[in-house]
């Protein structure tokens, strides 16, 4: 009987490389990723033999494409998770082998740009929503009046602000990563 464990981990889409390293660390300790839920935050691992497994996230242009899946499977990758249009691929690394899904700078740059666009959509998409909420439902009055409605209002406002701030940080970080790629 193989043991299972669940781990919550909050990470942002611009931290996908750190997240890959974390999954690889888990596999080296014998905990292999089985599935991911809750927009990438809830992880389910199964106990097995420690292994050197390479994990890579991809954000393809079309999220459901049999040709895409087949191409990765033919190249020896297996999909361990799919969430919000993101695919997590895994492949066992042989000693000394370089294992990558993106093998040149132009394709890596394109992946970075897609992540940057998603961050911008999150950031800009939230602004009109918040503005509409504040102008139509009197949210601002609720916030300043006190009581449970105000507390809930401030929590929502705080959540939006943290997502927006993180998107700004992420957009800058992705811009730096694109800039630092070799020409």
């Amino acid at each position, binding site marked *: 009987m193989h043991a299972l464990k669940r781990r919550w981990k909050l990470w942002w889409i611009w931290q996908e490389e750190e997240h890959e390293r974390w999954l690889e660390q888990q596999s080296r300790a014998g905990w292999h990723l089985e599935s991911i839920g809750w927009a990438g935050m809830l992880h389910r691992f199964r106990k097995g033999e420690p292994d050197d497994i390479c994990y890579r996230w991809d954000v393809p242009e079309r999220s459901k494409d049999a040709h895409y899946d*087949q191409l990765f499977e033919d190249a020896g990758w297996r999909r361990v998770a799919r969430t919000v249009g993101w695919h997590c691929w895994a492949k066992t690394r042989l000693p000394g082998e370089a294992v990558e899904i993106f093998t040149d700078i132009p394709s890596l740059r394109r992946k970075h740009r897609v992540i940057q666009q998603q961050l911008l959509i999150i950031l800009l998409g939230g602004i009109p929503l918040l503005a509409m909420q504040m102008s139509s439902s009197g949210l601002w009055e609720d916030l300043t009046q006190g009581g449970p409605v105000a507390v809930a209002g401030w929590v929502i406002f705080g959540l939006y602000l943290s997502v927006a701030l993180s998107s700004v940080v992420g957009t800058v970080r992705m811009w730096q990563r694109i800039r630092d790629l070799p020409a």
Partner: protein
Amino acid sequence: MNVEKLLPLSEASFYVLLALREPSHGYAVMQQVDAMSGGAVRIGPGTLYGAFTTLEKQGLIELVREADRRKVFKLSASGAAVVAAQIARLELMLKAARETETT
């Protein structure tokens, strides 16, 4: 089509186009590129998927058929023109390099 605008091709695109002189599917292209370059150029599936999408949009390759979830592509007439122009450029560079080589 303005051939010059598409030059220079990235190393991956160049090898993919060469491999598609004969109709081929993704994994066969990866293996061919590996063999043609003597193992120096390896193309990962993410890179190849993106290259197929871009090259098809640019009209340099065309879909021949789909079989068992695999798409078979081949080089188009425009693709062949771009490859020829890239080869001419590479030959010029090589010639210049050889001529300035000190013995």
